Protein backbone atom coordinates (compact mmCIF):
# COMPACT_ATOMS: atom_id res chain seq x y z
CA UNK A 1 0.00 0.00 0.00
CA UNK A 2 1.17 3.51 -0.79
CA UNK A 3 1.14 5.85 2.19
CA UNK A 4 -0.93 8.77 0.89
CA UNK A 5 0.94 11.37 2.91
CA UNK A 6 4.22 10.37 1.22
CA UNK A 7 3.10 10.11 -2.40
CA UNK A 8 1.14 13.36 -2.64
CA UNK A 9 3.12 16.26 -4.08
CA UNK A 10 2.20 18.55 -1.18
CA UNK A 11 4.40 21.40 -2.43
CA UNK A 12 2.74 21.40 -5.85
CA UNK A 13 -0.72 20.99 -4.35
CA UNK A 14 -0.17 23.89 -1.95
CA UNK A 15 1.12 26.09 -4.80
CA UNK A 16 -1.94 25.19 -6.85
CA UNK A 17 -4.26 25.99 -3.92
CA UNK A 18 -2.94 29.40 -2.95
CA UNK A 19 -2.22 30.63 -6.47
CA UNK A 20 -5.68 29.58 -7.70
CA UNK A 21 -7.35 31.35 -4.80
CA UNK A 22 -5.24 34.48 -5.21
CA UNK A 23 -5.56 34.68 -9.01
CA UNK A 24 -9.22 33.66 -9.20
CA UNK A 25 -10.32 36.14 -6.54
CA UNK A 26 -7.99 38.89 -7.78
CA UNK A 27 -9.42 38.91 -11.31
CA UNK A 28 -13.01 38.83 -10.01
CA UNK A 29 -12.56 41.55 -7.39
CA UNK A 30 -10.50 43.71 -9.79
CA UNK A 31 -13.23 43.59 -12.45
CA UNK A 32 -15.89 44.34 -9.84
CA UNK A 33 -13.93 47.38 -8.63
CA UNK A 34 -13.46 48.59 -12.21
CA UNK A 35 -17.20 48.31 -12.88
CA UNK A 36 -18.14 49.84 -9.50
CA UNK A 37 -15.80 52.79 -10.04
CA UNK A 38 -16.86 53.44 -13.64
CA UNK A 39 -20.60 53.21 -12.92
CA UNK A 40 -20.51 55.36 -9.79
CA UNK A 41 -18.27 57.91 -11.50
CA UNK A 42 -20.77 58.33 -14.36
CA UNK A 43 -23.68 58.65 -11.90
CA UNK A 44 -21.81 61.21 -9.78
CA UNK A 45 -20.78 63.24 -12.83
CA UNK A 46 -24.39 63.36 -14.01
CA UNK A 47 -25.44 64.60 -10.57
CA UNK A 48 -22.79 67.35 -10.75
CA UNK A 49 -20.70 65.85 -7.89
CA UNK A 50 -17.27 66.27 -9.43
CA UNK A 51 -15.12 65.28 -6.43
CA UNK A 52 -16.85 61.92 -5.81
CA UNK A 53 -16.83 61.38 -9.59
CA UNK A 54 -13.06 61.83 -9.62
CA UNK A 55 -12.57 59.50 -6.67
CA UNK A 56 -14.75 56.80 -8.20
CA UNK A 57 -12.83 57.18 -11.46
CA UNK A 58 -9.66 56.43 -9.52
CA UNK A 59 -11.28 53.30 -7.99
CA UNK A 60 -12.30 52.18 -11.49
CA UNK A 61 -8.83 52.82 -12.86
CA UNK A 62 -7.27 50.94 -9.94
CA UNK A 63 -9.53 47.93 -10.64
CA UNK A 64 -8.70 47.94 -14.36
CA UNK A 65 -4.97 48.19 -13.67
CA UNK A 66 -5.17 45.43 -11.04
CA UNK A 67 -6.93 43.17 -13.56
CA UNK A 68 -4.33 43.89 -16.25
CA UNK A 69 -1.49 43.34 -13.76
CA UNK A 70 -2.98 40.00 -12.59
CA UNK A 71 -3.27 38.73 -16.18
CA UNK A 72 0.24 39.85 -17.16
CA UNK A 73 1.75 38.46 -13.93
CA UNK A 74 0.02 35.14 -14.53
CA UNK A 75 1.50 34.82 -18.01
CA UNK A 76 4.97 35.82 -16.86
CA UNK A 77 4.87 33.12 -14.15
CA UNK A 78 3.49 30.50 -16.56
CA UNK A 79 6.06 31.12 -19.26
CA UNK A 80 9.11 31.65 -17.06
CA UNK A 81 9.36 28.09 -15.63
Amino acid at each position, binding site marked *: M*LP*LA*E*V*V*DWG*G*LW*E*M*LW*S*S*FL*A*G*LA*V*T*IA*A*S*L*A*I*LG*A*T*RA*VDARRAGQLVPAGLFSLVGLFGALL*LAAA*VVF*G*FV*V*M*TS*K
Partner: protein
Amino acid sequence: MNGDLILVIVVAAALAFDFTNGFHDTANVVATSISTRAMAPKLAVGFAAVLNFAGAFISLEVAATVAQGIVDADLITPLIVFAGLIGAIAWNLATWYFGLPSSSSHALIGGVVGAAFVAEGAQAVIGSGLVGKVIVPAIVAPILAFAVAGLGILFTYRLVGRLRPGPVNEGFRLGQLVSGGMLAIAHGTNDAQKTMGVITLALVANGNIASDDFHVPSWVVVSSAAAIALGTYVGGWRIIKTMGSRIHKMDAAQGYAAQGAGAAVILASSHVGFPLSTTHTISGAVIGAGAAKRLSAVRWGVAGNIVVAWVLTLPAAAAIGGLTYGFSRLFGTGSAGAIVVSAVILAGAAFLFARRVQRGPTATAPAEG
Protein backbone atom coordinates in the same frame (compact mmCIF):
# COMPACT_ATOMS: atom_id res chain seq x y z
CA MET B 1 10.65 -0.15 -40.35
CA ASN B 2 8.15 -2.11 -38.24
CA GLY B 3 8.83 0.18 -35.28
CA ASP B 4 8.40 3.26 -37.44
CA LEU B 5 5.07 2.00 -38.78
CA ILE B 6 3.62 1.46 -35.31
CA LEU B 7 5.01 4.86 -34.26
CA VAL B 8 3.15 6.49 -37.17
CA ILE B 9 -0.05 4.69 -36.08
CA VAL B 10 0.46 5.84 -32.45
CA VAL B 11 1.07 9.47 -33.48
CA ALA B 12 -2.01 9.41 -35.75
CA ALA B 13 -4.13 7.91 -32.93
CA ALA B 14 -2.80 10.48 -30.44
CA LEU B 15 -3.58 13.41 -32.75
CA ALA B 16 -7.03 11.97 -33.47
CA PHE B 17 -7.58 11.77 -29.71
CA ASP B 18 -6.39 15.39 -29.35
CA PHE B 19 -8.80 16.49 -32.09
CA THR B 20 -11.76 14.79 -30.35
CA ASN B 21 -10.66 16.33 -27.06
CA GLY B 22 -10.92 19.82 -28.58
CA PHE B 23 -14.15 18.86 -30.35
CA HIS B 24 -15.89 17.78 -27.13
CA ASP B 25 -14.48 20.58 -24.96
CA THR B 26 -15.61 23.49 -27.13
CA ALA B 27 -18.80 23.59 -25.07
CA ASN B 28 -16.87 23.95 -21.82
CA VAL B 29 -14.73 26.77 -23.16
CA VAL B 30 -17.29 28.89 -25.01
CA ALA B 31 -20.63 28.04 -23.37
CA THR B 32 -20.43 30.69 -20.66
CA SER B 33 -19.43 33.49 -23.05
CA ILE B 34 -22.23 32.63 -25.45
CA SER B 35 -24.97 32.07 -22.87
CA THR B 36 -24.33 35.48 -21.27
CA ARG B 37 -24.15 37.03 -24.77
CA ALA B 38 -20.62 38.28 -24.08
CA MET B 39 -19.62 37.08 -27.54
CA ALA B 40 -21.35 36.06 -30.74
CA PRO B 41 -21.14 32.25 -31.16
CA LYS B 42 -18.97 32.29 -34.29
CA LEU B 43 -16.58 34.82 -32.74
CA ALA B 44 -16.40 32.84 -29.47
CA VAL B 45 -15.53 29.59 -31.25
CA GLY B 46 -12.88 31.21 -33.48
CA PHE B 47 -11.42 33.07 -30.48
CA ALA B 48 -11.28 29.85 -28.42
CA ALA B 49 -9.62 27.88 -31.24
CA VAL B 50 -6.88 30.49 -31.72
CA LEU B 51 -6.21 30.75 -27.97
CA ASN B 52 -6.26 26.94 -27.57
CA PHE B 53 -3.47 26.85 -30.15
CA ALA B 54 -1.51 29.59 -28.39
CA GLY B 55 -2.03 28.01 -24.96
CA ALA B 56 -0.36 24.79 -26.02
CA PHE B 57 2.99 26.62 -26.28
CA ILE B 58 2.99 28.09 -22.77
CA SER B 59 4.28 25.19 -20.67
CA LEU B 60 5.56 21.60 -20.86
CA GLU B 61 5.20 20.58 -17.21
CA VAL B 62 2.08 18.47 -17.78
CA ALA B 63 3.67 16.75 -20.80
CA ALA B 64 6.63 15.81 -18.60
CA THR B 65 4.32 14.34 -15.94
CA VAL B 66 2.40 12.26 -18.50
CA ALA B 67 5.59 11.03 -20.21
CA GLN B 68 7.70 10.41 -17.12
CA GLY B 69 5.65 10.48 -13.93
CA ILE B 70 2.85 7.91 -14.36
CA VAL B 71 4.38 4.88 -16.06
CA ASP B 72 7.99 3.71 -16.22
CA ALA B 73 9.17 4.94 -19.65
CA ASP B 74 11.94 2.30 -19.75
CA LEU B 75 9.37 -0.53 -19.72
CA ILE B 76 6.94 1.00 -22.20
CA THR B 77 6.67 -0.07 -25.85
CA PRO B 78 4.85 1.74 -28.67
CA LEU B 79 2.23 -1.03 -28.61
CA ILE B 80 1.45 -0.24 -24.94
CA VAL B 81 1.00 3.46 -25.78
CA PHE B 82 -1.20 2.50 -28.72
CA ALA B 83 -3.37 0.23 -26.53
CA GLY B 84 -3.68 3.01 -23.95
CA LEU B 85 -4.83 5.48 -26.60
CA ILE B 86 -7.39 2.98 -27.88
CA GLY B 87 -8.66 2.50 -24.32
CA ALA B 88 -9.19 6.27 -24.06
CA ILE B 89 -10.76 6.65 -27.51
CA ALA B 90 -13.10 3.66 -27.00
CA TRP B 91 -14.24 4.93 -23.59
CA ASN B 92 -14.80 8.43 -25.02
CA LEU B 93 -16.83 6.98 -27.88
CA ALA B 94 -18.94 4.91 -25.50
CA THR B 95 -19.60 7.81 -23.11
CA TRP B 96 -20.36 10.12 -26.04
CA TYR B 97 -22.84 7.56 -27.41
CA PHE B 98 -24.65 7.18 -24.07
CA GLY B 99 -24.41 10.86 -23.21
CA LEU B 100 -22.34 10.29 -20.08
CA PRO B 101 -20.20 13.31 -19.13
CA SER B 102 -16.67 11.98 -18.68
CA SER B 103 -13.10 13.25 -18.76
CA SER B 104 -10.92 12.61 -21.82
CA SER B 105 -7.86 13.32 -19.70
CA HIS B 106 -8.66 10.64 -17.15
CA ALA B 107 -9.54 8.23 -19.95
CA LEU B 108 -6.12 8.80 -21.55
CA ILE B 109 -4.21 8.26 -18.30
CA GLY B 110 -6.38 5.26 -17.37
CA GLY B 111 -5.86 3.66 -20.78
CA VAL B 112 -2.07 3.98 -20.67
CA VAL B 113 -1.89 2.72 -17.07
CA GLY B 114 -4.14 -0.28 -17.86
CA ALA B 115 -2.13 -1.27 -20.94
CA ALA B 116 1.18 -0.88 -19.07
CA PHE B 117 -0.12 -2.98 -16.17
CA VAL B 118 -1.23 -5.84 -18.42
CA ALA B 119 2.00 -5.72 -20.44
CA GLU B 120 4.61 -5.38 -17.71
CA GLY B 121 2.81 -5.82 -14.39
CA ALA B 122 2.59 -3.42 -11.45
CA GLN B 123 6.27 -2.46 -11.78
CA ALA B 124 5.43 -0.48 -14.97
CA VAL B 125 3.01 1.80 -13.13
CA ILE B 126 4.43 4.56 -10.95
CA GLY B 127 1.81 4.32 -8.20
CA SER B 128 3.04 7.39 -6.35
CA GLY B 129 2.84 9.47 -9.56
CA LEU B 130 -0.64 8.18 -10.39
CA VAL B 131 -2.01 8.92 -6.91
CA GLY B 132 0.01 12.03 -6.10
CA LYS B 133 -0.05 13.80 -9.46
CA VAL B 134 -3.33 12.61 -10.99
CA ILE B 135 -5.92 11.25 -8.54
CA VAL B 136 -5.46 13.67 -5.62
CA PRO B 137 -5.30 16.83 -7.83
CA ALA B 138 -8.31 15.48 -9.75
CA ILE B 139 -10.31 15.44 -6.50
CA VAL B 140 -9.00 18.81 -5.29
CA ALA B 141 -9.34 20.83 -8.53
CA PRO B 142 -13.16 20.83 -8.99
CA ILE B 143 -13.70 21.56 -5.28
CA LEU B 144 -11.16 24.37 -5.46
CA ALA B 145 -12.79 25.82 -8.59
CA PHE B 146 -16.19 25.57 -6.84
CA ALA B 147 -14.89 27.47 -3.81
CA VAL B 148 -13.02 30.17 -5.78
CA ALA B 149 -15.98 30.85 -8.11
CA GLY B 150 -18.44 30.83 -5.19
CA LEU B 151 -16.36 33.26 -3.12
CA GLY B 152 -15.69 35.39 -6.19
CA ILE B 153 -19.38 35.80 -6.98
CA LEU B 154 -20.17 36.62 -3.31
CA PHE B 155 -17.55 39.42 -3.35
CA THR B 156 -18.87 40.59 -6.71
CA TYR B 157 -22.48 40.84 -5.57
CA ARG B 158 -21.28 42.63 -2.44
CA LEU B 159 -19.45 45.24 -4.55
CA VAL B 160 -21.80 45.75 -7.50
CA GLY B 161 -25.10 44.21 -6.34
CA ARG B 162 -26.80 47.57 -5.73
CA LEU B 163 -25.71 49.23 -8.97
CA ARG B 164 -27.86 49.62 -12.08
CA PRO B 165 -27.87 46.19 -13.79
CA GLY B 166 -27.31 47.57 -17.32
CA PRO B 167 -23.75 48.91 -16.89
CA VAL B 168 -22.82 46.01 -14.58
CA ASN B 169 -23.83 43.39 -17.15
CA GLU B 170 -22.11 45.34 -19.91
CA GLY B 171 -18.95 45.56 -17.81
CA PHE B 172 -18.84 41.85 -17.04
CA ARG B 173 -19.59 40.95 -20.67
CA LEU B 174 -16.55 43.01 -21.60
CA GLY B 175 -14.62 41.27 -18.81
CA GLN B 176 -15.58 37.90 -20.26
CA LEU B 177 -13.39 38.69 -23.27
CA VAL B 178 -10.50 38.43 -20.79
CA SER B 179 -11.80 35.54 -18.64
CA GLY B 180 -13.02 33.53 -21.66
CA GLY B 181 -9.67 34.07 -23.36
CA MET B 182 -7.82 32.95 -20.23
CA LEU B 183 -9.99 29.84 -20.03
CA ALA B 184 -9.29 28.94 -23.68
CA ILE B 185 -5.55 29.40 -23.11
CA ALA B 186 -5.72 27.31 -19.93
CA HIS B 187 -7.58 24.55 -21.74
CA GLY B 188 -5.04 24.50 -24.59
CA THR B 189 -2.19 24.44 -22.09
CA ASN B 190 -3.36 21.50 -19.96
CA ASP B 191 -5.12 19.31 -22.55
CA ALA B 192 -2.77 19.61 -25.53
CA GLN B 193 0.14 18.77 -23.25
CA LYS B 194 -1.38 15.37 -22.43
CA THR B 195 -1.16 14.43 -26.10
CA MET B 196 2.37 15.84 -26.28
CA GLY B 197 3.29 13.66 -23.29
CA VAL B 198 1.84 10.51 -24.84
CA ILE B 199 3.56 11.08 -28.21
CA THR B 200 6.85 11.77 -26.43
CA LEU B 201 6.37 8.57 -24.40
CA ALA B 202 5.96 6.66 -27.68
CA LEU B 203 9.11 8.32 -29.09
CA VAL B 204 11.05 7.23 -25.98
CA ALA B 205 9.59 3.72 -26.22
CA ASN B 206 10.57 3.50 -29.88
CA GLY B 207 14.11 4.68 -29.18
CA ASN B 208 13.81 8.02 -30.99
CA ILE B 209 14.46 9.90 -27.73
CA ALA B 210 16.72 8.66 -24.93
CA SER B 211 14.82 8.19 -21.66
CA ASP B 212 17.47 10.20 -19.77
CA ASP B 213 17.24 13.08 -22.27
CA PHE B 214 13.57 14.00 -21.95
CA HIS B 215 12.41 16.77 -24.24
CA VAL B 216 9.29 17.40 -26.28
CA PRO B 217 10.20 17.90 -29.97
CA SER B 218 8.87 21.08 -31.61
CA TRP B 219 6.86 19.15 -34.20
CA VAL B 220 5.03 17.37 -31.37
CA VAL B 221 4.12 20.71 -29.75
CA VAL B 222 2.95 22.27 -33.04
CA SER B 223 0.94 19.24 -34.21
CA SER B 224 -0.73 18.77 -30.81
CA ALA B 225 -1.61 22.47 -30.64
CA ALA B 226 -3.00 22.38 -34.19
CA ALA B 227 -5.07 19.22 -33.55
CA ILE B 228 -6.76 20.56 -30.41
CA ALA B 229 -7.38 23.97 -32.01
CA LEU B 230 -8.88 22.37 -35.12
CA GLY B 231 -11.05 20.12 -32.95
CA THR B 232 -12.27 23.14 -30.98
CA TYR B 233 -13.12 25.02 -34.17
CA VAL B 234 -14.94 22.10 -35.82
CA GLY B 235 -16.73 21.12 -32.59
CA GLY B 236 -17.94 24.68 -32.20
CA TRP B 237 -20.35 24.51 -35.11
CA ARG B 238 -22.15 21.55 -33.55
CA ILE B 239 -22.25 23.35 -30.21
CA ILE B 240 -23.65 26.53 -31.74
CA LYS B 241 -26.64 24.58 -33.08
CA THR B 242 -27.47 22.99 -29.72
CA MET B 243 -26.49 25.83 -27.39
CA GLY B 244 -29.96 27.18 -26.67
CA SER B 245 -31.44 24.01 -25.17
CA ARG B 246 -28.47 22.74 -23.20
CA ILE B 247 -26.91 25.63 -21.34
CA HIS B 248 -28.71 27.03 -18.33
CA LYS B 249 -28.96 30.77 -17.92
CA MET B 250 -26.44 32.62 -15.80
CA ASP B 251 -25.79 36.33 -15.48
CA ALA B 252 -22.64 37.94 -16.85
CA ALA B 253 -21.06 38.29 -13.39
CA GLN B 254 -21.50 34.55 -12.71
CA GLY B 255 -20.07 33.74 -16.13
CA TYR B 256 -17.07 35.94 -15.47
CA ALA B 257 -16.46 34.47 -11.98
CA ALA B 258 -16.78 30.89 -13.25
CA GLN B 259 -14.41 31.45 -16.17
CA GLY B 260 -11.91 33.33 -14.00
CA ALA B 261 -11.90 30.61 -11.32
CA GLY B 262 -11.70 27.77 -13.87
CA ALA B 263 -8.82 29.44 -15.72
CA ALA B 264 -6.94 30.18 -12.47
CA VAL B 265 -7.17 26.56 -11.25
CA ILE B 266 -6.23 25.01 -14.63
CA LEU B 267 -3.31 27.40 -15.20
CA ALA B 268 -2.01 26.90 -11.65
CA SER B 269 -2.20 23.11 -11.98
CA SER B 270 -0.52 23.24 -15.40
CA HIS B 271 2.28 25.29 -13.88
CA VAL B 272 3.02 22.59 -11.29
CA GLY B 273 2.51 19.74 -13.80
CA PHE B 274 -0.83 18.24 -12.71
CA PRO B 275 -2.75 16.75 -15.67
CA LEU B 276 -6.29 17.36 -14.42
CA SER B 277 -9.69 17.20 -16.09
CA THR B 278 -10.56 20.59 -17.53
CA THR B 279 -14.21 19.50 -17.83
CA HIS B 280 -14.55 18.74 -14.14
CA THR B 281 -12.73 21.90 -13.13
CA ILE B 282 -14.92 24.15 -15.27
CA SER B 283 -18.03 22.26 -14.11
CA GLY B 284 -16.98 22.84 -10.49
CA ALA B 285 -16.56 26.57 -11.16
CA VAL B 286 -19.94 26.88 -12.92
CA ILE B 287 -21.70 25.01 -10.09
CA GLY B 288 -19.89 27.19 -7.51
CA ALA B 289 -20.96 30.43 -9.21
CA GLY B 290 -24.55 29.15 -9.36
CA ALA B 291 -24.69 27.72 -5.83
CA ALA B 292 -23.33 30.91 -4.25
CA LYS B 293 -26.30 32.82 -5.65
CA ARG B 294 -28.98 30.18 -5.03
CA LEU B 295 -28.50 26.48 -4.21
CA SER B 296 -31.62 25.46 -6.12
CA ALA B 297 -30.20 27.05 -9.30
CA VAL B 298 -27.81 24.12 -9.66
CA ARG B 299 -28.89 20.93 -11.43
CA TRP B 300 -27.64 18.57 -8.73
CA GLY B 301 -28.67 15.53 -10.79
CA VAL B 302 -26.25 16.56 -13.53
CA ALA B 303 -23.57 17.18 -10.90
CA GLY B 304 -24.18 13.63 -9.61
CA ASN B 305 -23.77 12.19 -13.12
CA ILE B 306 -20.43 13.97 -13.41
CA VAL B 307 -19.26 12.37 -10.16
CA VAL B 308 -20.36 8.88 -11.29
CA ALA B 309 -18.58 9.30 -14.62
CA TRP B 310 -15.52 10.61 -12.79
CA VAL B 311 -15.32 7.46 -10.65
CA LEU B 312 -15.86 5.11 -13.61
CA THR B 313 -13.54 6.68 -16.19
CA LEU B 314 -10.07 5.71 -14.88
CA PRO B 315 -10.83 2.00 -14.21
CA ALA B 316 -12.99 1.57 -17.33
CA ALA B 317 -10.39 3.10 -19.68
CA ALA B 318 -7.69 1.07 -17.91
CA ALA B 319 -9.66 -2.15 -18.49
CA ILE B 320 -10.17 -1.36 -22.19
CA GLY B 321 -6.49 -0.39 -22.56
CA GLY B 322 -5.42 -3.66 -20.94
CA LEU B 323 -7.78 -5.75 -23.08
CA THR B 324 -6.62 -3.95 -26.22
CA TYR B 325 -3.01 -4.70 -25.39
CA GLY B 326 -3.82 -8.37 -24.79
CA PHE B 327 -5.72 -8.61 -28.06
CA SER B 328 -2.98 -6.79 -30.05
CA ARG B 329 -0.32 -9.14 -28.65
CA LEU B 330 -2.16 -12.09 -30.22
CA PHE B 331 -0.73 -10.76 -33.51
CA GLY B 332 2.83 -10.50 -32.13
CA THR B 333 4.88 -7.49 -31.02
CA GLY B 334 4.86 -5.79 -34.43
CA SER B 335 2.37 -3.47 -36.03
CA ALA B 336 -0.12 -6.14 -37.21
CA GLY B 337 -2.12 -6.00 -33.94
CA ALA B 338 -2.26 -2.21 -34.04
CA ILE B 339 -3.50 -2.26 -37.65
CA VAL B 340 -6.27 -4.78 -36.84
CA VAL B 341 -7.36 -2.85 -33.72
CA SER B 342 -7.32 0.46 -35.63
CA ALA B 343 -9.58 -1.04 -38.29
CA VAL B 344 -11.98 -2.38 -35.63
CA ILE B 345 -12.08 0.99 -33.81
CA LEU B 346 -12.67 2.92 -37.05
CA ALA B 347 -15.51 0.55 -38.00
CA GLY B 348 -16.98 0.79 -34.47
CA ALA B 349 -16.77 4.60 -34.48
CA ALA B 350 -18.49 4.78 -37.89
CA PHE B 351 -21.24 2.42 -36.66
CA LEU B 352 -21.83 4.37 -33.42
CA PHE B 353 -21.80 7.68 -35.28
CA ALA B 354 -24.35 6.41 -37.82
CA ARG B 355 -26.60 5.06 -35.01
CA ARG B 356 -26.35 8.30 -33.07
CA VAL B 357 -27.19 10.40 -36.14
CA GLN B 358 -30.13 8.09 -36.83
CA ARG B 359 -31.47 8.33 -33.25
CA GLY B 360 -30.73 12.01 -32.72
CA PRO B 361 -28.70 13.70 -30.00
CA THR B 362 -28.56 12.33 -26.46
CA ALA B 363 -30.66 13.89 -23.73
CA THR B 364 -27.69 14.80 -21.57
CA ALA B 365 -24.96 17.09 -22.78
CA PRO B 366 -21.68 15.39 -23.61
CA ALA B 367 -18.98 17.20 -21.69
CA GLU B 368 -15.49 15.81 -21.81
CA GLY B 369 -12.10 17.15 -21.01
